[in-house]
C-alpha cells in the first residue's frame, strides 16, 4: 500500500476577496451541486486509476469549502471513503470562513471524520477586513471560533496576514493578541502578495514595485516596515509558544499541518477538483481550470463515454514528467522551506549521489554568507536565510 495525500478543491466563494488570485468564483447552489457530483465522479476515476493507495491526509481547500451545504460535503467525504483506503489516523482538514459554519454543519463534519479546521481570519481589525474585501468582521470570527470549539474540534488553524496596506505594528499586535488568546493549535501568517489579475494589483501595483525596490511607498508598508511586521509576528508567536516549522506556519504542541508538510517532503499526492495539482510517480499534473469543461467531462464519464484525451487523464491540463534534475531541485527548494531543512542522507537515498556533489559550491557560498547552516547531517536556512528565501531558494535551480 502506498501512502498518499489527497487534495480536494472547492472553487466557490460567497464573494471574491480583493487580493485573492486562487481559482474560485461566486456560483449558485445549482452549480455547486453539479460540481460536487462531477467531483465525486473524478474521485472514483482517480481511485480506479491509482489502486493500492492508502490516504494519510485529506485537505479540502478552496475557495471556501465550508460554504458548501453539509450534504454536499458529506457526499464528497463519503465518496472518498468508498473509493480509497484511509489511514484510521488520517488528518482530514477543511478550509472555513467565518460566517459559513453552523453547529449542525460542524456536527456533520465531525460525524464524517473531519478532524481539523482552518479558519481564514486574516485580521482582527475590522477596517483591514473591509479593505481586504472579506465577508466577515472580527465578531463574526469569534462566534465561528466558539462554534468550532463547542463542536469539539481540537486541531484548529487560524490564518492571518501581514504587510497589509496601512498596517503597523500596533494593528498587527492587536490581531496577534486576539488570535493567540484563543489558543488555536496552529497559526499561518502569510505576507500579502500583490498578484496580477486581482483588484489589489490594479490598486497597488506601483506601490508593490516601490516596495520591492526599497523605495518610499504610498499605502503598502515599505520594505523595511514589512520586514518589521514579519519579524514581529515571528517573535510574538514564538513567545506565545507557537513554534515556526515552515516559512509561514506555526504550531503549538507539535500540531503541525501534516498535509502541507507532505508537499515540502514530496510525498505523493493526488489532487481532485478544478485546477488541482498532483504529484505521483514523479509526474506532476494539474487539472483543467474551466469549470464547465470540468463538469462536462465528469458527466460524459457518468454516461459511459470516456472522453479521449492527449494527456493521461481527461481532467488534465498539464502533465510533466520530472527529470532527476527537476526532482533534486524540488527536494531542495521545497525541503528548505521547513525550519529543520533537509537531511543529507535523504538526498543520497533518493538520488544516489552526495548532496555536495551537486550543490557543494552553492551550499558553501550560502553558509559563508550566513544564510544556511549545517548540523547533525541536516542542512537548513538560518533566520536571515528564510527572510530572503525567494532569493536563496532560486539558487538551487540547476542550469539546463
Amino acid at each position, binding site marked *: 500500500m502506498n501512502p498518499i495525500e489527497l*487534495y480536494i*478543491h472547492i472553487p466557490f466563494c460567497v464573494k471574491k476577496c480583493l487580493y485573492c488570485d*486562487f481559482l474560485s468564483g461566486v456560483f449558485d447552489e445549482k452549480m455547486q451541486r453539479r460540481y460536487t457530483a462531477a467531483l465525486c465522479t473524478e474521485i472514483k476515476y482517480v481511485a480506479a486509476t491509482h489502486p493500492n493507495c492508502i490516504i494519510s491526509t485529506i*485537505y479540502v*481547500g478552496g475557495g471556501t469549502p465550508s460554504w458548501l451545504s453539509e450534504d454536499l460535503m458529506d457526499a464528497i467525504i463519503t465518496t472518498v471513503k468508498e473509493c480509497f483506503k484511509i489511514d484510521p489516523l488520517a488528518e482530514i482538514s477543511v478550509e472555513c470562513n467565518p460566517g459559513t459554519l453552523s453547529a449542525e454543519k460542524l456536527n456533520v463534519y465531525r460525524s464524517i471524520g473531519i478532524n481539523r479546521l482552518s479558519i481564514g481570519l486574516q485580521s482582527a481589525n475590522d477596517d483591514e477586513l473591509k479593505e481586504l474585501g472579506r465577508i466577515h468582521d472580527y465578531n463574526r470570527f469569534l462566534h465561528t471560533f466558539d462554534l468550532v470549539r463547542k463542536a469539539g474540534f481540537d486541531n484548529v488553524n487560524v490564518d492571518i496576514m501581514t504587510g497589509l496596506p496601512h498596517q503597523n505594528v500596533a494593528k498587527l499586535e492587536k490581531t496577534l493578541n486576539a488570535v493567540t488568546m484563543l489558543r488555536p493549535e496552529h497559526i499561518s501568517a*502569510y*505576507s500579502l*502578495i500583490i498578484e496580477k489579475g486581482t483588484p489589489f494589483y490594479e490598486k497597488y501595483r506601483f506601490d508593490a514595485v516601490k516596495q520591492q*525596490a*526599497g523605495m518610499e511607498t504610498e499605502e503598502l508598508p515599505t*520594505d*523595511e516596515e*514589512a*520586514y518589521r511586521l*514579519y519579524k514581529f509576528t515571528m517573535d510574538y508567536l514564538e513567545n506565545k509558544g507557537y513554534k515556526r516549522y515552515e*516559512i*509561514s506556519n506555526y504550531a503549538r504542541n507539535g500540531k503541525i499541518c501534516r498535509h*502541507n508538510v507532505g*508537499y515540502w517532503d514530496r510525498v505523493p*499526492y493526488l*489532487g481532485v477538483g478544478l485546477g*488541482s*495539482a*498532483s*504529484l505521483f510517480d514523479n509526474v*506532476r499534473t*494539474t487539472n483543467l481550470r474551466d469549470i464547465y469543461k470540468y463538469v462536462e467531462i465528469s458527466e460524459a464519464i457518468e454516461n459511459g463515454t470516456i472522453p479521449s484525451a492527449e494527456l493521461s487523464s481527461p481532467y488534465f491540463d*498539464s502533465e*510533466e514528467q520530472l527529470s532527476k534534475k527537476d526532482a533534486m*531541485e*524540488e527536494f531542495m*527548494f*521545497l525541503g528548505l522551506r521547513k525550519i529543520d531543512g533537509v537531511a543529507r542522507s535523504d538526498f543520497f537515498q533518493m538520488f544516489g549521489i552526495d548532496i555536495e556533489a551537486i550543490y557543494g559550491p552553492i551550499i558553501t557560498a550560502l553558509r559563508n*554568507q550566513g*544564510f544556511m547552516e549545517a548540523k547533525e547531517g541536516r542542512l537548513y536556512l538560518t533566520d*536571515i536565510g*528564510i*527572510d*530572503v*528565501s*525567494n*532569493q*536563496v*531558494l*532560486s*539558487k538551487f*535551480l540547476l542550469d539546463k
Partner: protein
Amino acid sequence: MDQSKIRNFCIVAHIDHGKSTLADRIIQMTGTLTDREMQAQVLDNMDLERERGITIKSQAVRIIYKADDGQEYIFNLIDTPGHVDFNYEVSRSLAACDGAILVVDAAQGIEAQTLANVYLALDHDLDVIPVINKIDLPSADPEHVIEEIEDIIGLEAQDAPQISAKTGLNIHDVLEAIVHQLPAPNGDVKAPLQALIFDSLYDPYKGVIVFCRVKEGTLKVGDKVRMMATNAEFDVVEVGYFGAGQFIPCDELPAGMVGYMTASIKNVRDTRVGDTITHVNRPAAEPLPGYKKVNPMVYCGLYPADGAKYPDLRDALEKLQLNDAALQFEPETSIALGFGFRCGFLGLLHLEIIQERLEREYNLDLVTTAPSVVYRVHKTDGTMIELTNPSNLPDPSEIDYMEEPMVDAEIMVTSEFIGAIMDLCQERRGQYISMEYIEETRALIKYTLPLNEIIYDFFDALKSRSRGYASFDYEMKGYQKSELVKLDILINKEEVDALSFIVFSGTAYERGRKMCEKLKDEIPRHLFEIPIQAAVGSKVIARETVKAMRKDVLAKCYGGDISRKKKLLEKQKEGKKRMRQVGNVEIPQAAFMSVLKLDED
C-alpha cells in the same frame, strides 16, 4: 553622349529643410519612376535612414529630363549625408559634382548647417542655385529668406524657385534652373584616367561597388585600374550608371559621367572615399586633390549582452565594415563585460547608427560603454600614446601631461537665447572666440570646445536651452593640453573597468557624484549592502549605498501547485542572467549605459 547635356549636381541643406523630399520629387517629375514605384524618399534606402529622416550613405541616381528647349538632359543627382559626423563624405560627394542646389526652409531661413554646406560647396567651386522650400507653410516668409540668402551668403536669390517639395509646387522651375544655371562638366575623354571615388557599397555577389565621377579620360570594362592612394590594382568587370534604386550596366564611363564600377573587390578599405582611380598602363600624373584618410573621433566598447554571442558580433562588425570604411574595431576584454570590441566612429551619430544596425539587422543585444574621444598621453619618458580606452591610461607617475581634441563650433541662435547658449558653452569648458549678428535677431557664436564635452548630449542641451532654435556645426581643430583625470567606479569595493572614464579634473567631483546616484538607482538590492564609490586615483570623491534586501519571502502555498512556485523561482533566476556579475554583485546592463545620461535632469 554630348557633355553639354550632362548636369552633375547635389542638393545641400540644413537637416529637415527638405533635401530628400526635393530629390524624390525631382526623380518623380522627370518620369524615371511611375508614381506606383515611387516610395517615399527613394534615395534613403536603408530602413534606418528613412526612419530617422537622415541620409547616412551617399546615393546617386541618373535621370533623364526633357527640358522646355526640347532637348534631353542627363541629370546625375548625388545625395550627400547631412550630418557633421560625415563631413568628409560630404566634401567628396561635392567634389563629384559641378553644381549644387541649396535648399532653404521658407520658415526657418538659414541655419548653421546651411552655411557650413554652402561654404563647402563654394570651396569646391560649385555653382549654387538657391531654392526656397516649404513655401506652403503658413509661417513661410520667402521675402525674408531671400534677403537672408543675399545678405549672409551673397547669392543672388530674387529669382530663386519658390517651391513645396511636399506638394510638388514649382518643381519644374528647379529642373529648368538646373539646365540653365548649372554648368555642364568638362574633361577630356582621351586624357589619362582620373575618376574620383565618392562612395562604395559592398554587394555579396559583385564585391565592392565603387561610386565614381570620371573627371578625365574614360573608364571601360576590361581596363586594368589602380587606386592611387592605396595602390590596389583591379580588372574592371562592369561599369554602369544608377537607375532609381538599381545599377544599369553600360560599356564605358567617359569624362563628365557619374557611375559605378565593379572589379571583384573584396575589401571596401581598398577603395577609400576620396581616392582617385587611374589606369595602370597610362596613369594620371597626379591624383585628384583632397584625399585624406578619415580617422575615428569617438571610441567605445561594444559587448554582446550574451557572452556566447561574441563571434556573432565579430561577424556583424565585419559585414558592416564592408560598407563603412570609417568603422574601426579591435577585440578587447573587460573584467566586467568579458569579450568585446573597442570600436572607432566618426562621431556619436555614427556610433548610434552602427549600434542600432547591429541590434536591428543582426539581432544582437549590446552593452555599450561610455564613448570616449582619443586623448594624447605624453609620458615622462618622452613617448606619446593615443588613448582610446580609459582603462589603458598609464599610471599617473608615468604621465607628463595629457591633451584632448578640440573643435571649432559655430552656433547660430536667435538673440533671446544667446545668453543661455553662452552659459552652456561656458559650462562645457568652451573658449569664446567671437559673436556676430548676421541679422538683427540672429547671431553666429563661435566657440572652441573640447570634443569630449560635445559627444554626449551637447546637441540635446543646445536644443532644449534654445527651445529648438539653435543650430550647430563644428570642425576639428586639433589637440590642446588639459587637466584630465581618470574617474573610476568601485562597486562593492571592486573597480569596474567598463565604467571608468576620462574627465576634466574640475568636473570630476560632480560627474562622480551623479554617476554614483545613477548607479544606486540602477543596481537592484542584493542580499548584502553594496557601496558604490567614485574615485580618482586612490581618493574616493563620492559614495552611495544600495541597501541590503532583508525580506523576500515566497510564502503562499498554492494548494500543492509546485510548478507555479518553481516558475516564480525561475523568473527570479532568469532576471539574474540579464545581469553582469562583477565580484558578487549583479549589475544590470542598463547601468553601463547610464553614464551616457548624466545630464538628463
